[in-house]
């Protein structure tokens, strides 16, 4: 009815639990509540930051959104449609819309494939009509978009620096022309100077392509810098959710306060 009012992503009461088994018969004796009853929404064209310390469950949320882990309960609505428990074949169309960028630039690219093959794989799946030449042209274009040169396409990942690899990872995610990208700690492993380049690039791309980000990080300064809205996670739960300004200027939750307090300031 009121189309613009529908947020791009609505998450309600999302739970992701992993079983713990023990004993003679390996019976299930409990579960790790990695994500425990989490709700939030992401509006189109915005960046939502997700901060938390290691083990807080932030990465699991990111992976649940693109179905790298299966949710235990709750609902995930994308564009108003419930995609929580779709079968893989039904989920396939959403893979074109939702993409992910990983933290580790060394492990997120298949070392045995050329850059062209890595990026072209996405094209082959979602744009099967493209011929080889068209794909090469498209890959060149994508590389240009992330600040690399077309001639880089026939090299292997190990020939690139960490920042360059992260750019390639972004290009791969962009290849399917997604609407929504989960950025799973994309700058944590990078040197500060490179970190700045990647953050800038992500911001530029968002502007240019109208992307929506879920930006997962543990560095509060970076999250503040890039996000419109911030979620603070602790032990599987969201303890505070507010606009970036509100959180940093006027934190409500004691954990958030503690977190902010711990950041050394120049």
């Amino acid at each position: 009815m009121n189309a613009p009012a529908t947020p791009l992503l609505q998450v309600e009461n999302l739970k992701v639990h992993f079983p713990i088994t023990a004993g003679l018969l390996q019976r299930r004796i409990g579960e790790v509540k990695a994500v425990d009853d989490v709700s939030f929404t992401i509006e189109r064209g915005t960046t939502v930051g997700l901060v938390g310390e290691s083990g807080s469950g932030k990465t699991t949320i990111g992976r649940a959104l693109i179905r790298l882990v299966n949710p235990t309960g709750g609902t995930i609505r994308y564009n108003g449609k419930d995609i929580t428990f779709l079968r893989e074949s039904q989920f396939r169309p959403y893979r074109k819309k939702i993409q992910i960028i990983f933290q580790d630039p060394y492990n997120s690219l298949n070392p045995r494939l050329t850059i062209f093959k890595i990026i072209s794989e996405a094209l082959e799946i979602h744009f099967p009509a493209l011929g080889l030449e068209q794909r090469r042209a498209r890959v060149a274009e994508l590389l240009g978009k992330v600040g690399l040169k077309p001639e880089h396409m026939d090299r292997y990942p190990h020939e690139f620096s960490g920042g360059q690899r992260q750019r390639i990872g972004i290009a791969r995610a962009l290849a399917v022309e997604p609407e929504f990208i989960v950025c799973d700690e994309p700058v944590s492993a990078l040197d500060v100077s490179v970190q700045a380049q990647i953050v800038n690039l992500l911001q530029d791309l968002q502007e240019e392509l109208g992307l929506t980000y879920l930006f997962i990080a543990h560095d509060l300064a970076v999250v503040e810098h890039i996000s419109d809205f911030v979620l603070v996670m602790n032990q599987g739960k969201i303890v505070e959710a507010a606009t970036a300004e509100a959180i940093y200027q006027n934190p409500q939750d004691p954990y958030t306060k503690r977190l902010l307090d711990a950041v050394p300031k120049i």
Partner: protein
Amino acid sequence: MKTYILRRLLLMIPMLLGVSLLVFVLVYISPGNYLDALKAQRDIPAEFIAKKERELGLDRPWYVQYVSWLGRTVRGDFGESWSYRIPVAELLAQRAPATLALSLTSLVFAWAIAVPLGVFAAVYRNSIFDKLSALSAYAALSIPEFFLALLAVIFASQWGVFPTGGLSSIDHDYLSPVGQLWDYVHHLILPTIVLGIGGAAGLMRVMRTNMLDVIQSEYVMTARAKGVPENVIMFRHVLRNAINPLVTSLGFAFSGLLSGAVLVENVMNYPGLGQLIFQAFMRKDRDVVMAAVIIGSSMLIIGNLIADILLAWVDPRIRYDK
């Protein structure tokens, strides 16, 4: 830990059932049976062979034979050796000590050689000593065990210092207790070396690689930064970590205690289980074969378990079932 061990032991049951079924069927479908040797003798009447076949139950379908074998075995009765006409358990018990002794001495031999050599090779990395030991390790790993055994037999028969086989001398019964002990040792030396040398070479290489691995680890850097003397670093910090994987290999060594020396025993004429079992396989003395397989498999499974337990024991980071 206790439940973990119990669970692993319980898992043995279906495993052993599978193993026994597989081997039983293999033995069954292989042409001929225990009576082949009789059939090839010209003065054995056909009726007698038929009678024997009935007596041994070989005329029944394989599943009936299997079920009756299983029923007996489950009750702890390994059956009777057809060629020796005594209970299989008794037969194996007669031979087991010899094999056990050989396996243990060769294990000790391998460790006694491998650990120091491996350590020194790593400490004096790229030295002449390292290169020589690497070369001899290659040689030891590349010479077929049976061939080495054969050479040892030839050597023994040419040189005359070591016996050419057997477990004890002919006059063993008439020796003093010390003499008897020496006699056993004397007979063990060559088989021990032959059986142990391959293992020693393998262990040595592993030891060296582990040492080199550990030497590069950060906690060695920490120890150095603390001012710990180099030899203490090598023999305490590094060795203690590097030897862990070897300690767990003791579990696997356990698996082979009774079944690892078949080739050497056969070539070197050492009257242990391996020789007996090899002959049982050749003669198709079924119950002996089955018992050997069951025991061998049990020891393998238990050996793996021991390896896992040892791993938890030597490496405080590993715990099962907390």
